C-alpha cells in the first residue's frame, strides 16, 4: 500500500499493489493514477535506438519531390523551415523547427540519457531533472501532426503535379510508431522509484 494524491483532483488515497498490466484509477474523479507496465528496459531501449537511427534518416534523406513534366523539385524536411525563414517569418520557422526537430531530438537524447544508465542499474547525474524536462517537452513534439500535414498537402497538390514521397516520409512514419511504442513501454514510476532505492 502506498499513499498517492490524484494529479487531477488532489484526492489522497492508498493504492494497493497494482498487478502487472493493470492500472489504478482515482476513486473520486476516475483519472489514471498509475499503470504497472512490464518491468523491463530492454524493449524501450531497443525502440529508442531504432528511433535515433530513424531520426537521422528522416533528416538526411529526400522528403517530398514535386514533379511536373520535366520539372523536378526535391525537398527535405528542413526545406520548409528554411523557406519560411527566407520569406520573413523567422518566428514561425523557429516554432516549426522546435516542434519537428528540436523537441523530438531532445526527447530522444534525454530518454537515452536516463534509460541507458538505469538499465545498467546506475544513475546518470541529474537524471531526475532530465526526466522532468522530458515530461515537459512531450506536448511540444508534434511529428505525428506533421505527418497528417504531409497527407493533406499531397491531396492538395495532387491535381497540380505528381508528389513523390521519399525515404524521409517512410522514416518519419516509422519514427512516429517507434517513439509511441517506446513511450508506451516505459513505466515512468519505474524511473522515479529509483530515487528511493539505495544506489
Amino acid at each position, binding site marked *: 500500500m502506498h499513499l*498517492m494524491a490524484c494529479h487531477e483532483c488532489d*484526492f489522497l488515497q492508498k493504492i494497493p499493489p497494482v498487478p502487472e498490466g493493470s492500472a489504478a484509477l482515482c476513486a473520486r474523479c476516475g483519472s489514471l493514477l498509475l499503470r504497472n507496465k512490464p518491468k523491463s528496459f530492454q524493449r524501450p531501449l531497443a525502440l529508442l535506438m531504432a528511433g535515433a537511427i530513424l531520426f537521422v534518416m528522416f533528416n538526411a534523406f529526400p522528403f517530398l519531390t514535386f514533379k511536373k513534366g520535366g520539372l523536378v523539385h526535391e525537398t527535405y524536411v528542413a526545406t520548409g523551415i528554411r523557406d519560411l525563414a527566407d520569406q520573413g517569418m523567422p518566428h514561425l520557422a523557429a516554432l516549426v523547427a522546435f516542434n519537428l526537430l528540436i523537441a523530438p531530438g531532445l526527447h530522444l537524447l534525454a530518454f537515452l540519457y536516463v534509460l541507458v544508465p538505469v538499465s545498467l542499474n546506475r544513475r546518470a547525474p541529474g537524471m531526475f531533472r532530465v526526466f522532468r524536462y522530458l515530461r515537459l517537452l512531450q506536448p511540444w513534439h508534434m511529428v505525428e501532426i506533421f505527418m497528417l500535414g504531409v497527407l493533406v498537402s499531397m491531396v492538395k497538390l495532387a491535381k497540380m503535379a505528381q508528389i513523390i514521397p521519399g525515404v524521409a516520409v517512410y522514416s518519419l512514419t516509422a519514427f512516429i510508431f517507434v517513439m509511441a511504442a517506446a513511450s508506451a513501454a516505459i513505466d515512468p514510476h519505474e524511473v522515479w522509484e529509483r530515487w528511493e532505492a539505495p544506489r
Partner: protein
Amino acid sequence: MKPTAPTARAAGLVACSVCHLLCPGKPAARPDGAHRCPRCGARLHSRKPDSIARTWALVIAACIFYIPANVLPMTTVTSLGAVQSDTIMSGVIYFVQSGSWPIALVIFIASVFVPLLKLAILGYLLISVQRQSRKRQKDRTRLYLVTEAVGRWSMLDVFVVTILVALVNLGALATIQAGPAALHFAAVVVITMFAAMSFDPRLIWDAWQAKETSDE
C-alpha cells in the same frame, strides 16, 4: 462539522505536478526561497499559481489572435504572375468543391472547430470554477483532460503551410508564400496550449469542500 474530502492539501501535503511525489506542504527553507520537489526539482504548488487569472488572460489573448488568423490570408499562391490568397475557410471550401470532403473535414475540425471548442470549454470550466459549481465534477475533469490532449492537433494547418511553401517553390513558374494568418494561427495554438496547461483541474474539486473549510 461535516467530513471533508481527504485531499493532499487538507492533509498538509503537496503532490509534485511532474513526478507525483508526495511532499510536505511546509517546505524546508531553501536559499532561493522556492519550494521544489526534492526528487525532480519541479516547483511545488498545492494549486497552480493564479490559475484562474492566468488562464483567463491566455484565453482572451487567444480569442484576439483568432480573428486575424481567420481573416488574413494563410497562403498566397503566385502562378505565372497570377496571385491568389487563401484563408483557412477558403482552403476548406476549395476541398469541398474539389470533392475531397474527408480532407476538408480534417482541416475544418483541426483549424476551425477545435480551437473554438477549446476556448469555449476553457471559458466554461473557468466560469464553473469561479461559481464554485459542484455539478458533474467528474465529467468536467474528463472534459479538461480531453481538451488538453486534443489542442496540439490544431498545429496541422501550420505544418501544411510549411510543406506547401517548400514544395511549390519553383521560381517564376509558381511559388507559395506563407501569409500573416499563419503566424497568428500558430500563436492561437501555442497560447491555447499554455492556457490549458495553466488551468488547474483540482480547482473543480475544491468546491467540494469550499463551503465547509476556509481556504488557506
